[in-house]
């Protein structure tokens, strides 16, 4: 893989407002009732000793993407030799192996027309040098997008200077959505 795109989300600023979710729905014309991204709230402790974290979650565009490996037709593929995982509707049989293969459950969704649909990291915007819709609309500016193998990029800088985590690294999928904590 030549280019590794990453999303870095600052949970200390995220308020869980869901703007990213709506922005994705409109930008990508996601069919009614379906979601390519969502918000998770995690609260730990006991009143009044509490900690709450909000996470905007979506496809992790894993460096080791099991959904791509499991796809029998090559419909699930990496966009232009990057880690961005796309599904080619014209190659997809709707066998759903990719859905079963995703340890992050539901990063892939069934389009009503029968093919598998998913977060694309808004590659149609990325190729014009724009941030994905979710990142570009976030009112708290807690979301960042960029190239991880460019040490000067904002995402690289953030991961160098801040503590972070990824979701379930134990799956071995090497996710590329990072959460600053």
């Amino acid at each position, binding site marked *: 893989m030549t280019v590794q795109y990453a999303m870095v989300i600052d949970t200390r600023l995220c308020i869980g407002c869901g703007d990213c979710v709506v922005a994705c729905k409109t930008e990508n014309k996601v069919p*009614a009732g379906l979601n390519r991204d969502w918000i*998770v709230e995690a609260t730990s402790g006991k009143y009044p000793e509490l900690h709450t974290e909000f996470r905007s979650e979506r496809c992790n565009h894993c460096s080791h993407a099991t959904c791509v490996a499991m796809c029998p037709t090559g419909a699930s593929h990496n966009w232009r030799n990057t880690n961005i995982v796309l599904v080619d509707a014209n190659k997809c049989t709707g066998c759903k*192996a990719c859905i079963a293969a995703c340890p992050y459950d539901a990063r892939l969704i069934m389009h009503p027309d029968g093919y598998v649909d998913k977060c694309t990291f808004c590659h149609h915007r990325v190729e014009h040098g724009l941030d994905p819709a979710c990142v570009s609309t976030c009112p708290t500016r807690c979301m960042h997008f960029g190239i991880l193998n460019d040490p000067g990029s904002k995402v690289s800088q953030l991961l160098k200077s801040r503590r972070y985590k990824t979701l379930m690294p134990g799956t071995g999928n090497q996710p590329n959505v990072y959460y600053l904590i």
Partner: protein
Amino acid sequence: MLEELLVTPRFNPKVDPLLGIWTWEISVYLFFGGLTAGIIVFAALAALNKKDAVRSFSANSLALWAPIVLSLGMTTLFLDLEHKLFVFRFYTAFVPTSPMSWGAWILMIIYPVTILQILSTLRPGYPLIAGFVDRISIGRWVLDLTSRYQREIAIVAIPSAVALGIYTGILLSAFNARPFWNSGLLGVLFLVSGLSTAAAMVILLAKEKAEKHWYVRMDIGLILVELVVVALLLINLATGSEQHLKALEYLTSLNGYALAFWVFFIGLGLMVPLVVEFRELVKEHRVLALLGPILVLLGGYLLRHITVNLGQETAWQDYRMEHNPQLLERVKLNYKTEN
């Protein structure tokens, strides 16, 4: 306490609230796939032991069932596809990391193998049909050729069928995202179960008592092996990671699959036929002679059904939802044609 929940509701079809991508179509497909593998193996083994006149049905007539059963399975597999017009895409690519891609190509080998198997035993197995074929010169040539290489065909058929049988299990076990499936033992289990169901089928179809008895003995052996493999699978889960332990809970919880697994699969699908078939060897009984193999077949299906359904429910993460996701149905209902 840790409260971790989705604060924006999600109701993606077949995914929320529980993963439910595959249902009976896939279970039936896997069942018929295993059965096909068993049929081919037993037909080939019998063909290799020509001297053993006891298994004349298996040697000569059984192979015809393979493409029929397999086609039934392929039909349900096709029914499961959501984007049916694009089914040809399985054959415009080979993806070595994808068991399903392997499966698609294995099936492409299985079909010609079974056809050759049928042709090589058509004359003794189905003399009436063979009579028609023999009237055409090219047909006669084909039957001559295939019966001459009957042995070689059988030798190729066995590994192909074993690959098919194992594939039906590996298809599921390759998903590390589904902890219940994620064990290589599933390949062995589905192969053994496939052989067992095929044996049961022969018991039902074969006419000669001696052949039936041969398969009863064979099936008893296979059921015993299957029980051992199931035990290994359970031990594997019980000694596994947190996700595996959670998956095991589904088999021990009455709200989960405990009843289906222990009573229906282990009890009625394996133990009862084991007892019935033992008894059959000692003392024959008309009804019980049918009951044993029928339970084996049902048990074979149940194994796939439980595995397919339960496996999808096991996951690495499990978010609860703040809102009732079913309310999203209102949007789906009213905004079908708009974003």
